[in-house]
């Protein structure tokens, strides 16, 4: 398939791996965080990390929106789903995320009308087809997904679909990165930046990382060769003593992002004063709620939302995993009490969660040989 196959060439991958080995300085350790869960998935699906020298470590970041949803918000969603007359719609992964009182899938089994959709537009279609029911869309995701929700809300408003509303849990990527960089227990040398978020926001929002924290950033595509090349580009910056934002994914990401998408986000959403992230706590100006102009479509205003805060289970170490402090297999419940079939923590739910990626591709422990 065009735009895919040419970025999975094994021979080119080996050449790039050789370049990486030739670039690193022996005796120096390199820790590079891939911010995005999509990157984590690619790394383990294709064994990208097996091609890297032992002194180059990839650390998995907080860029999986399913993984960062706190349990309280899931409980709020379940409460809305149980309101008589409501059809509650969400992406597939969100149905399996455990709250304090089970999952949306459990709620469905108990009689709530919970339906999986592939896009917010599908949820709007369900609303049109069921004018006597209240259809709520559980919106999650970073700046990549938020434009889809925003455009759907614009359509709903324009066509006057009054039985549609949105429970927004959209988040923005820069505040958690800043929080991570401020974290005293974190030692990172550079970042692989999120490609598709950057399609929307562009490369400029990441310039604070080299400017304020002196770390290189390379915005990367999602195929294995993209990741290898991005690791190489971060290492080149480190070895040459440079520190800037580079764009490996220029075939898709313009420096200024997508201005039309940014305009629609500005129109439909506004920043919350603070929003809770699983494992990271409350982060200022990191969540999006519906703007005043779209208040009529805001499920948080239309329905009684409990808003209860639920502490993460004690056994679960998603927070440390999301900050890259521990590897998934170092969590006490990884692969035993917590599996993709019966997840305790969110990182085990989504195929892009670090724990699920490790589990699905057999990474129960990390004993890597030197290439």
């Amino acid at each position, binding site marked *: 398939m065009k735009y895919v196959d040419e970025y999975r060439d094994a021979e080119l991958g080996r050449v790039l791996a050789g370049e990486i080995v030739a670039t690193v300085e022996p005796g120096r350790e390199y820790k590079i965080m891939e911010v995005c869960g999509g990157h984590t998935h690619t790394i383990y699906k294709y064994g990208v990390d097996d091609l890297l020298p032992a002194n180059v470590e990839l650390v998995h970041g907080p860029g999986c929106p399913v993984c960062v949803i706190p349990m309280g918000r899931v409980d709020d969603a379940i409460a809305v789903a149980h309101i008589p007359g409501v059809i509650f719609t969400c992406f*597939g992964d969100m149905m399996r995320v455990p709250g304090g009182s089970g999952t949306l899938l459990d709620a469905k089994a108990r009689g709530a009308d919970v339906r999986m959709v592939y896009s917010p537009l599908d949820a709007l279609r369900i609303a049109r087809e069921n004018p006597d029911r209240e259809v709520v869309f559980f919106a999650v995701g970073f700046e990549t997904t938020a434009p889809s929700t925003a455009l759907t809300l614009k359509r709903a408003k324009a066509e006057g679909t009054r039985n549609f509303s949105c429970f927004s849990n959209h988040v923005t990527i820069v505040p958690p990165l800043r929080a991570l960089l401020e974290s005293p227990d974190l030692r990172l040398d550079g970042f692989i930046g999120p490609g598709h978020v950057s399609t929307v926001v562009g490369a400029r929002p990441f310039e604070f990382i080299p400017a304020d924290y002196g770390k290189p950033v390379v915005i990367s595509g999602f195929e294995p060769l993209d990741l290898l090349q991005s690791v190489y580009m971060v290492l080149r910056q480190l070895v040459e003593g440079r520190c800037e934002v580079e764009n490996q994914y220029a075939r898709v990401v313009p420096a200024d992002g997508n201005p039309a998408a940014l305009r*629609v986000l500005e129109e439909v959403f506004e920043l919350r004063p603070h929003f809770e992230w699983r494992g990271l706590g409350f982060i200022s100006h990191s969540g999006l709620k519906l703007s005043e102009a779209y208040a009529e479509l805001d499920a948080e205003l239309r329905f009684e939302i409990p808003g209860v805060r639920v502490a993460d289970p004690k056994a679960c170490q998603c927070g440390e995993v999301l900050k890259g402090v521990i590897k998934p297999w170092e969590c006490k419940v990884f692969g035993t009490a917590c599996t993709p079939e019966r997840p305790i923590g969110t990182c085990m739910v989504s195929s892009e969660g670090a724990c699920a990626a490790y589990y699905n591709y057999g990474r129960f422990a990390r004993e890597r040989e030197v290439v």
Partner: protein
Amino acid sequence: MSCAADTHCITCSDEGVPMRVLDVQPDGLARCEAEGAESDVMIDLVGPLAIGDNVLVHAGVALARLA
């Protein structure tokens, strides 16, 4: 485009799928195709499209045109 463990999921995280435009509809949607699967995609953010164009699609919206 499922959430199976061995495929990328368009519904989660920072993931997108390259799709080919099969038909442009008058209501701001385009019928698009990737690996045999078809879906309606919102094209408000990428300007006018023609049949055969390639776009990067995330959660039902085309975020970028692929050159």
